[in-house]
């Protein structure tokens, strides 16, 4: 019976083409990044690190990288706090307006980032807050919170509550129960949510491009601007570094939570 579930040669050839298509642009970037030449060419005989050195000597890229790192780390952390609190409310209480609140928290997934970007630009312009790193981070929090909320809700709904009830019977306060029992039990959801939020914020372009100023440019926005102006292998080197950072985060996510669970659970 199991023999009948094999993929035939046509299916495997199709599969090879799809995998090739998916990985081709990433593979080309990682190869071109090591070119010793001045143009975007594949290295043939020699490999060089000169374009990686060039990236680190380029103050704009370094500043943008640090901006992105800060924004993503802070946005992911605050998103986790908001999502755990909101997740407890949505999972454990039945109250008027629960459905509306749920829709509000998940709305950024349905609104194109382009629209969020122009909407925030309008708000920040009226507040006189354009180009502030604080408000940029606030925008990122809104975009990444739904991802964390979904994982937290999934973790909460699968939770066996007898341990919490036992603790309450034994006289633990609700804060102690939350800190000592609930949080440890949903920890994979929290850490997985944090990493997913971090990656999504770190990669965000379309909203950020409207609400960054020269001082607060994040790395994807910097790369976009660089790519529209000049084409040299430095762009490939930055891209290769970004792929490396993402791959590292991805492996970490996979270890903690199972990447297929996180990504497929989104569907």
């Amino acid at each position: 019976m199991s023999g009948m579930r094999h993929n035939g040669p046509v299916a495997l050839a199709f599969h090879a083409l799809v995998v090739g298509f998916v990985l081709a642009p990433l593979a080309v970037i990682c190869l071109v990044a090591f070119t010793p030449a001045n143009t975007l060419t594949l290295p043939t005989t020699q490999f060089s690190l000169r374009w990686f050195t060039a990236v680190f000597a380029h103050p704009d890229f370094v500043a943008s990288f640090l901006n992105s790192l800060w924004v993503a780390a802070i946005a992911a952390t605050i998103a986790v706090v908001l999502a755990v609190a909101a997740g407890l409310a949505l999972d454990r209480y039945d109250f008027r307006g629960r459905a509306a609140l749920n829709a509000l928290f998940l709305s950024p997934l349905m609104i194109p980032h382009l629209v969020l970007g122009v909407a925030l630009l309008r708000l920040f312009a009226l507040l006189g807050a354009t180009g502030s790193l604080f408000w940029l981070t606030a925008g990122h929090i809104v975009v990444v919170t739904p991802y964390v909320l979904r994982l937290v809700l999934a973790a909460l709904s699968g939770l066996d509550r007898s341990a919490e009830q036992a603790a309450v019977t034994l006289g633990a306060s609700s804060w102690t129960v939350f800190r000592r029992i609930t949080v440890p039990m949903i920890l994979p959801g929290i850490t997985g949510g944090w990493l997913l939020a971090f990656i999504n914020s770190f990669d965000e372009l379309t909203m950020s491009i409207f609400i960054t100023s020269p001082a607060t440019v994040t790395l994807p926005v910097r790369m976009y601007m660089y790519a529209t102006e000049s084409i040299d292998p430095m762009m490939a080197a930055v891209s290769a570094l970004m792929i490396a950072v993402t791959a590292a985060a991805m492996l970490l996510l996979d270890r903690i939570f199972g990447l297929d669970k996180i990504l497929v659970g989104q569907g």
Partner: protein
Amino acid sequence: MSSARADTTPWLLAAPGALLFTALVVVPLALTLMLSFHVYDAATGVKDAYTLAHYTAILSDSYFLNIFWRTLRLAALTTLICAAIGAPEAYILSRMREPWRSVFLLAIIGPLLVSVVVRTFGWSMLLGPAGLVNEAFRALGLGTVKILYTETAVVIALVHVMLPFMVIPVWTSLQKLDPMVEAAAWTLGASRFTALRRVVMPQVTMGLLSGSLVVFGLSASAFAIPALLGGRRLKMAATLVYDEYMHELNWPLGAAIAILVLVINLVIMLAYQRVVEARAKRTLG
């Protein structure tokens, strides 16, 4: 959980998030909707008078209509190609053995986490006049083909970025299908094709539908891909909004276009929910 506390506790828990989301989602959207009705004057900027002129301009000027038509056409084409590639690929993946199944699932959906700018840049290198694709064409004696800055380049990159959004829901719905059911159809004399059509396809339809809607919505509002691979002349809705805001400085017009993009997205999502609900009703009887 006493009943006296039960009324306020959920609200206290949700309040910080709810306030932030109201301030940074609901209020800005309302402001943008209002902005789209403001009069704009090229010399003096946004005025305190109201007009429908931006909407009538977008819906009557052939320049804007062409861009909207291109956006919808390319998004639809991307959706079709993603369905044609993504559904069979999800099926093939579901029939693989471990560890290959996990490895290739990661390879297919992992790039989802790599920034769109990076992936778009990769395609601009592959598709450029000196890129690998054209080198292959020259080696085959086909000469150099202009791909970069054409609709073809935009669609190729869109398919690449959107493919995981198609594979994921189809894969999820295939997971719910017991492989023994397909095997039972074969045992009962159904051909491979009949089993696929009568047993697997119905199960996959909902996944395919939800994947298609996500892909269409995201493609229609995509920014980086048309901006970097379409060039200046080949505009789509998102690059048009960017131009109105950043180059023309006509914010009210840009706002009107953004509102239209949002409305199209929401209509698609609501239509999808209707279909899902109707289907749920039918299965429940």
